[in-house]
């Protein structure tokens, strides 16, 4: 087997990189309106949230109805560390991810043995419990008044709070996390998670440690949600419990479902669609949330596999995103790279 037999796509990653780090910022700088920057940053953060939800709901098949709460845990960790301990973004970014992951781990310990709908309802209850803590523990979280985060984005002392710098920071962090999620879900590890989704008893019998893997997927996805929360807290400078309520969890779930369960490109497309479409339809005002519900309903009804279904997404990723399979001498592709 020689190098020429290993298909390594570089064109698509290069194009995506070019789009995110050159074309989009150039376009944003050309228009130079705060609103466009805001939309781009929010879309980026939701791409990360949707990708992290993809890991737990799409790949591992655990219907998660409390994802926004872990996003909220990350955001509150960042905000509280910034206001009470005076830490900058450099420290709050990893710490909020870790705190969200820790909370998720503790939550996962008792609930991970539940199946399908019972797990979904347990996550709903846990999401609501975390939301109630944010709302009611007024001495600690300032309750419904929210927290003003005065520290903007910075890395190791360099302030990155300009419009373009903020965009670049958010985009870089999000792209890094999405690449990490892509490596997790497009690998043997991802395949093990998929086997749990398809038939956990069978996977268990074949030696896949189902409970442990599910816990890992749940915790990892909470980590990425926490990172997204810290980006949100430092980017907007103000957080309140309303940003992390049940309907946000549903919005993130809708993104994954519309894009296609189990498909990472689909999750990204779904996030962009459900953030940019309502922004584009701003004139419709109150109808935005109805649009979200309608898009979700219609896509479940007419596109049960999502906009970019899992099978085609996997083929795309294998061929184009550097996760190609090796060819043996007789030309059969095997495994993941």
């Amino acid at each position: 087997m020689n190098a020429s037999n290993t298909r390594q796509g570089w064109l698509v990653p290069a194009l995506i990189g070019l789009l995110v780090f050159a074309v989009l910022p150039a376009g944003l700088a050309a228009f130079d309106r705060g609103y466009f920057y805001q939309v781009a940053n929010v879309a980026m953060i939701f791409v990360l949230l949707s990708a992290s939800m993809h890991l737990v709901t799409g790949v591992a098949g655990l219907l998660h109805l409390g994802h926004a709460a872990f996003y909220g845990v990350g955001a509150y960790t960042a905000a509280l560390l910034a206001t009470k301990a005076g830490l900058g973004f450099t420290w709050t970014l990893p710490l909020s991810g870790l705190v969200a992951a820790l909370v998720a781990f503790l939550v996962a310990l008792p609930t991970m043995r539940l199946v399908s709908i019972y797990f979904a309802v347990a996550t709903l209850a846990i999401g609501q419990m975390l939301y109630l803590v944010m709302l009611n523990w007024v001495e600690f979280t300032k309750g419904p008044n929210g927290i003003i985060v005065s520290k903007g984005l910075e890395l190791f002392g360099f302030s990155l709070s300009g419009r373009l710098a903020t965009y670049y920071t958010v985009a870089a962090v999000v792209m890094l996390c999405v690449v990490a999620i892509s490596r997790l879900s497009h690998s043997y590890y991802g395949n093990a998670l998929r086997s749990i989704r398809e038939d956990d008893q069978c996977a268990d019998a074949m030696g896949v440690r189902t409970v442990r893997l599910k816990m890992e997927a749940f915790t990892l996805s909470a980590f990425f949600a926490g990172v997204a929360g810290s980006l949100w807290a430092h980017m907007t400078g103000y957080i309140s419990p309303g940003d992390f309520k049940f309907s946000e969890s549903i919005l993130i779930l809708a993104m994954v479902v519309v894009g296609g369960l189990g498909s990472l490109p689909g999750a990204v497309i779904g996030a962009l669609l459900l953030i940019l479409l309502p922004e584009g339809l701003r004139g419709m005002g109150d109808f935005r949330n109805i649009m979200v519900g309608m898009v979700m309903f219609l896509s479940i009804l007419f596109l049960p596999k999502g906009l970019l279904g899992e099978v085609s997404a996997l083929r795309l990723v294998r061929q184009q995103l550097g996760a190609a399979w090796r060819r043996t001498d007789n030309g059969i592709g095997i495994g993941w790279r």
Partner: protein
Amino acid sequence: MIDPYYLQQLAIGLSLGMTYALMAIGFTLIFGVLNVVNFAHGEIYTLGAFAGLVLITASAPPVAAVVFAALAIGALAGFSLERLAFKPFRRFTDEASLKSRAMRESTLLSSLAVSIVVREALEIVFGSEMRSVPFEYLINTPVRVGPVILVTGDFIIFGVSAAMLIGLQYLLTRTRIGLGIRAVSNNPLGAKYVGIDTDRTIIMTFVVGSMMGAAAGILVGLYYGAIFPAMGFVPGIKAFVAMVMGGLSSIPGAVICALILGVSESMATTFVSSGWSDMVAYGFLILTLIFFPNGLFGAGRERV
């Protein structure tokens, strides 16, 4: 002698639990048959309340007519909900897809989507703030019973939930429709083989369950005097908790657990601020799921 304060809290808790029970009955009926959670049940409750409110503001009918309007809207909503969110996912009737997880979860998501659309549509039509019910329709004239004070609504809600329970038991055990519902609930495929029209039975279940949900909505609306588009969300979760605690397919179990839930919540407000009282329900849910996987009153069913 028990402190009258606690007796009063107990009474408040029981009436709160009764309002949850009203909703849990319909919820459990639908879950028991289809084995899917109907996330739109809360919206049916809201629709029932709004149907009553619209009728009250349009003309001033007697309370019974208001309840009948809510029942009619509930039946209609249940029918359309089943057609919209559940029927399209029963295209395949072989055993594998009946047991398929993807199938069950797609109806979960579709009912969720329908519930979002309905709630947002209600917000556009009626505005998101609370609408108050005209004073003369409120069912909260105080009645003193020994050391505690109850309101007329407590008796009405108690009467209605008792009537619903008895009526439902009669329906389920004595009538043809009820036998069909129980057969489908037990084994959909087997029911089909012996000639039961499963499609019609499922519609009937939705209609009956949604009528109960809508009646619950208008009664609770008249009881608290506030009707708003998001009113169905919290009772929906409480009803779900009661259903899970009661063991999913047991309707009397769900009612008893709804009462336990209501009493615990009202007792909890003695010790913590009322904002935290919702925590009780979520805590109960998690504890039940972990320690009593079969519920407190239910028969076994695979869930772990």
